[in-house]
């Protein structure tokens, strides 16, 4: 349980770092780890006197700055007023394309997932899309997705949005929009670059020296285990409880 908490704390702290510099981050429903990362950044900025961070959590009443119905997040993204967002994927390929629809032949898929949600749209419009998928396995990270819910790179149209990084239970990748692929940035302890290679179905660039993902420092952990999990409890009571119990 404590290993699980430590893993999650690394993810949350990494997300806060990935979000550094943004003004407004939107978080989808059922996303406690991204939400916690955003809250950590907000608290940190506040303590350092850095610019305030606005967090919109879909489906939350307390973290809802919208008053124009379900379309407002999408309009807001189109206006350039959302800097960061999180997307997952049943499959994610080496070109950064994501599949939220299913595997096998469309429409009578072999495995069917819920559907594309807003991905096909938001991927074009939000500059810093963080791909977040805890399961790190060859069935998720494939050479080519069976269905492109949202494409990472479309030279045929101007766009400000797209993938920025990919964060999993095992590693953090940067996405290089020029090269059109992922580059391994760091590996979460206790994993090794070889573990990543073995569990990733797509090709990616690997630096000569692969860093270990930074563990949150004592100040960050104190903030996380105190104020952040308290704030999070409002929207994700079960998750916050688990994290606090493990402490």
């Amino acid at each position, binding site marked *: 349980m404590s290993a699980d908490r430590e893993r999650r704390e690394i993810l949350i702290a990494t997300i806060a770092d990935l979000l550094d510099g943004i003004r407004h981050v939107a978080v989808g429903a059922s996303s406690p780890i991204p939400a916690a990362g955003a809250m950590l950044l907000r608290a940190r900025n506040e303590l350092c006197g850095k610019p305030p961070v606005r967090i919109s959590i879909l489906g939350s009443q307390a973290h809802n700055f919208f008053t124009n119905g379900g379309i407002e997040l999408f309009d807001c993204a189109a206006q350039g007023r959302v800097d960061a967002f999180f997307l997952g994927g049943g499959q994610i390929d080496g070109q950064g394309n994501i599949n939220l629809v299913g595997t096998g032949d*469309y429409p009578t898929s072999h495995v069917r997932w*819920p*559907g594309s*949600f807003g991905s096909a749209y938001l991927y074009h*419009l939000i500059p810093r899309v963080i791909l977040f998928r805890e399961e790190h396995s060859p069935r998720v990270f494939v050479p080519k997705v069976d269905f492109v819910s*949202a494409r990472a790179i479309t030279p045929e149209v*101007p766009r400000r949005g797209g993938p920025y990084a990919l964060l999993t239970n095992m590693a953090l990748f940067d996405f290089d929009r020029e090269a059109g692929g992922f580059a391994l940035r760091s590996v979460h302890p206790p994993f090794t670059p070889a573990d990543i290679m073995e569990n990733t179905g797509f090709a990616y660039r690997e630096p000569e020296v692969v860093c270990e993902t930074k563990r949150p420092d004592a100040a960050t952990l104190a903030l996380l285990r105190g104020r952040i999990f308290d704030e999070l409890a409002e929207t994700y009571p079960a998750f916050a409880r688990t994290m606090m119990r493990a402490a």
Partner: protein
Amino acid sequence: MTEIVGLEALAARVGPGQSLAIPVDGSGVAMAATAAILETGISDLKLICVPISGLQADLLIGAGCVASLETSAVSLGEAGGAPRFTAGVKSGAFTMRDSTCPAIYAGLLAAQKGVPFMPIAGIIGSDLLNVRPDWQVIDSPVGEARKVVVVPAISPDVALFHAPEADRAGNVRIGRHRELADLAYAAKRTLVTVERIVDRNLLESEDSAAGVLPSLYVDAIAVAERGAWPLALWDEYPADEAEIARYAAMARSEDGFRAYLSAFLTHRKQVA
């Protein structure tokens, strides 16, 4: 003008073969009315989820009422995938029209504005364009040369949702859930269930009016207490997570689904 009717009479206004638009879980899903509609043995619905659905769509699909499904996703949220949706897609039980959330809003907006189509940002490069031949990529007719996706208008025959309250004139309080208004503007007819009917005029003050869908757009209203159960209704009650999890478990099999459905309809009759 808006008619105030009983729940069965309201349900009877949804006919086979019609397109039926429903809102996302938590925004005001008319579950009691859905039970009443299921009781009518309706078939061949063209279900439009605005922009996604969960339990409501899964029940209608499982009961065999749905001929086609336009949605950006069907999911039970925390409780996992929607079992009857997943099974139905695989067996080809209905025509699947995969979409993406803002495209569904864009289609409704086109209907709201009486235009045949609506342009929408993004989407280019998505395989949705391959499976939605009714969507087009055009060269922008104005400004700098660029490709733009356009989607056709969505004019549902019926919009159906649940809200906390309506007044006697048929004005419905929707708060900031303006997606419910988007539904009603686009739909040919709008049916609403409410927790209660209030005596005051909801349009009376500028402030209360701001959160109101005017009766102009509302064809019929029925009272259904706890009408969104087991889903949440904002400002009124949270979702009954245990009940939704129970559904998720039972609906994994066809038999389990039938047992759930039967209990659900019985429960609803007892409440009413």
